């Protein structure tokens, strides 16, 4: 009986002492950050947080005219110091565990990331799954806050733009974890996503140009790093080719000239530019590197499985022969585009962003040890060969195009 009473008393004490974690933080004491911007101001680091404004959710219940987010900034010699500087200006402690986006100003990225960002990986609060973007030609805080979508929160607007990569591979979706993992690899240079401010013509309700310009964001293209320093950008089409080579394409559109030799010009003018489109269902790329007497050969073999998106021109896809010509035309366009990008990167940037060095290292580890310091030079002068095979497995709801008799 005595023992039971002691247990009961102990349980009673424990119930009150174990109500929460030590130094628990309640929701009304923290500011939840969704996006973080990092910039260089003079010699210091400027950090900008996009904080969710809880009052906004009460707007319809008398919360007043408040925006969905607030922006707070802190400055310091290091990122950590800048984080703490925020506490002198903002009443709540910043909670970054919901931070899904890190935007780096171009100046910040050009100064090198690794030496400056140790805190982001040491701090367990920040999730390694946060996406990383470079504000092209701008400060991070300049692009934060622009919202041209339907999302209430600008951070979520940008996040959704990145996620749209699944339908349009003209961008890259790089998480900070992926960036760091690739940074340590030999034989590949890292890339990161880009966010750019562009002008948008404002139109009124009737669709008339109002003569004023508004800003909107685009995440087209990619930023190229040498070691951890931003050195160049590539265009949307080149990024698409990069994604093809790196096997990062799921869905996407390939637009290509309809084969001319079978355009019978029954209803359309031969002078018209006839373009058809294929929607990719699956893309599989195998890359290879071979040592030849005269140098190194880089090879890619791309297999595309897709569905016909649109056919413009007098081609009859119901006819097997013409159907095959359509597949061939699609393959040729992809082949040309990828080859063009690889040669452009070899010529203009001179850095292996495709990861051929990784393949070389894995295939010829001993040889790679000898040439790893000169790999980019070797890559720049290597021959590139590509094979593309397209299989169109669906024709959509119609087979014979509507303009073909």
């Amino acid at each position, binding site marked *: 009986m005595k023992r039971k009473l002691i247990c009961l008393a102990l349980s009673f004490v424990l119930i009150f002492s174990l109500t929460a974690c*030590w*130094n628990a933080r309640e929701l009304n004491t923290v500011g939840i950050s969704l996006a973080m911007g990092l910039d260089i101001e003079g010699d210091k680091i400027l950090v900008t947080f996009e904080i969710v404004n809880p009052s906004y959710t009460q707007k319809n219940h008398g919360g007043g005219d408040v925006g969905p987010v607030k922006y707070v900034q802190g400055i310091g010699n290091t990122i950590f110091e800048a984080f703490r500087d925020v506490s002198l200006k903002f009443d709540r402690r910043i909670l970054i565990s919901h931070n899904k986006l890190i935007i780096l100003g171009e100046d910040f990225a050009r100064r090198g990331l690794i030496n400056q960002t140790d805190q982001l990986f040491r701090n367990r609060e920040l999730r390694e*799954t946060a996406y990383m973007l470079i504000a092209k030609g701008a400060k991070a805080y300049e692009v934060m806050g622009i919202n041209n979508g339907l999302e209430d929160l600008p951070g979520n607007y940008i996040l959704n733009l990145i996620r749209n990569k699944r339908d349009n591979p003209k961008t890259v979706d790089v998480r900070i974890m992926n960036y760091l*993992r*690739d940074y340590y690899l030999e034989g590949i240079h890292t890339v990161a996503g880009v966010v750019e401010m562009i002008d948008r013509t404002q139109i009124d309700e009737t669709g008339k140009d109002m003569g004023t310009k508004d800003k909107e964001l685009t995440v087209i293209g990619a930023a190229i790093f040498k070691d951890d320093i931003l050195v160049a950008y590539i265009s949307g089409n080149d990024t698409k080719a990069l994604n093809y080579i790196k096997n990062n394409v799921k869905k996407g559109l390939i637009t290509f000239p309809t084969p001319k030799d079978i355009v019978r010009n029954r209803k359309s003018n031969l002078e018209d530019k006839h373009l058809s489109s294929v929607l990719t269902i699956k893309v599989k790329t195998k890359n290879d590197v071979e040592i030849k007497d005269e140098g190194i050969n880089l090879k890619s073999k791309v297999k595309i499985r897709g569905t016909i998106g649109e056919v413009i021109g007098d081609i009859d896809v119901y006819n097997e022969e013409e159907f095959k010509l359509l597949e061939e035309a699609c393959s040729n366009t992809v082949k040309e585009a990828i080859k063009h990008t690889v040669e452009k990167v070899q010529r203009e940037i001179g850095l292996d962003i495709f990861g051929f060095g990784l393949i070389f290292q*894995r295939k010829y*580890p001993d040889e790679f040890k000898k040439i790893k310091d000169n790999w980019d030079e070797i890559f720049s002068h290597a021959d590139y060969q590509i094979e593309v095979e397209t299989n169109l497995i669906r024709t959509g709801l119609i087979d014979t195009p509507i303009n073909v008799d």
Partner: protein
Amino acid sequence: MSNVNERIIKERNKIYYNQTLLLLINFRVMLGLNNLPILRVPPANQDVWIALLLSIPYILIFSLPLLFLSNKFNNFNLIEIIEKIMGRILGKIVGIYYFLVFLYYLVIFSSTFVEILDNALFRETPTWATASLFLITSIHIAHKGLRNLARLGEVLIPLILVSLFVFVILGYDNYQFANLFPILGNSTFKDINRGAIDISLRFVDAIIATMLTPYLVNKKDLNKVYIRSTIYSLLTITLITITTLTTLGPEFAKRINFPFLTYTRLINFQPAIQGFESVYIVFWIIGNIIRIAGYLYISSVSLGQITGIRNDRFILPLAILTLIAVQLIKDTRPVLGLRGPFNQITLIISFISILVIPIIVIIVYLFRRKFKERG
């Protein structure tokens, strides 16, 4: 402690094959999870999983002396065996050494566990509070005896193992198998062997197995349970290591204190399902508490053996001693986050405890038997 008492305790704490197997697997897997800085041992690159696989035969070879002794005297634990062979005084001295070894491991494992909790959950909680939480739990479990510890393990350890396999499957999207290549391209056979020996010396559970032998219902199961637990646990750790390497890359993985925790943090299903590490931490904590309770119990048994007093009287004082030691260590320096003395000390202690002393004891035993036969 009278022989009758001793027999009663052993009888009351009889454990079965499955229970022993699960306990030993848990001890090893937790060591693997807590010290996946195993990734830092040679060759410290994408081939470290080969070193892990190669460590299986090394562990078995290094355990041979202890297994030999336990098979010969399967009614006695290691300290009793040594006392029987080496004589009372020398036996007591070696017994004290082994007690200190168990205590050392208890303190190091507890300090590592505090570090895990500090990093994963209680960043601002003082060391004494974190350590008290799990030590009180461990005291309770150890007080209930080995049989109850084994029963607890029988229920929870399969859950822990299943959860690990589920995490391995859930993170499949993040795998980049290319991180495992070139296989054997950047490491030599010598590096891999050095790594395998280093790893095998970190798994000190052969000593625990010899302490558990007298409690086994069927003592003939000893070899089977030891070999199987070694293979199963090392295969599990190898699987975890491969998933970590393929997800984080070898270079980044070896910079992280708890790579599998980071791995679980990366599991997410768009757009909002994430936070799997919370589930992992729950199982991690349970596994570590079972392990610490096991070491606390074994430490108390060895001290009971030396002093001749019932072991359960030592559980509380040993836990308090551990708490003080953890407080002193953890408030001075990190245990895992520093390539410091603990690593070296642990390897030296393991080498002496698993190999040197048991070999000396076997030599003495063989000499004595020879003289006895001649006499």
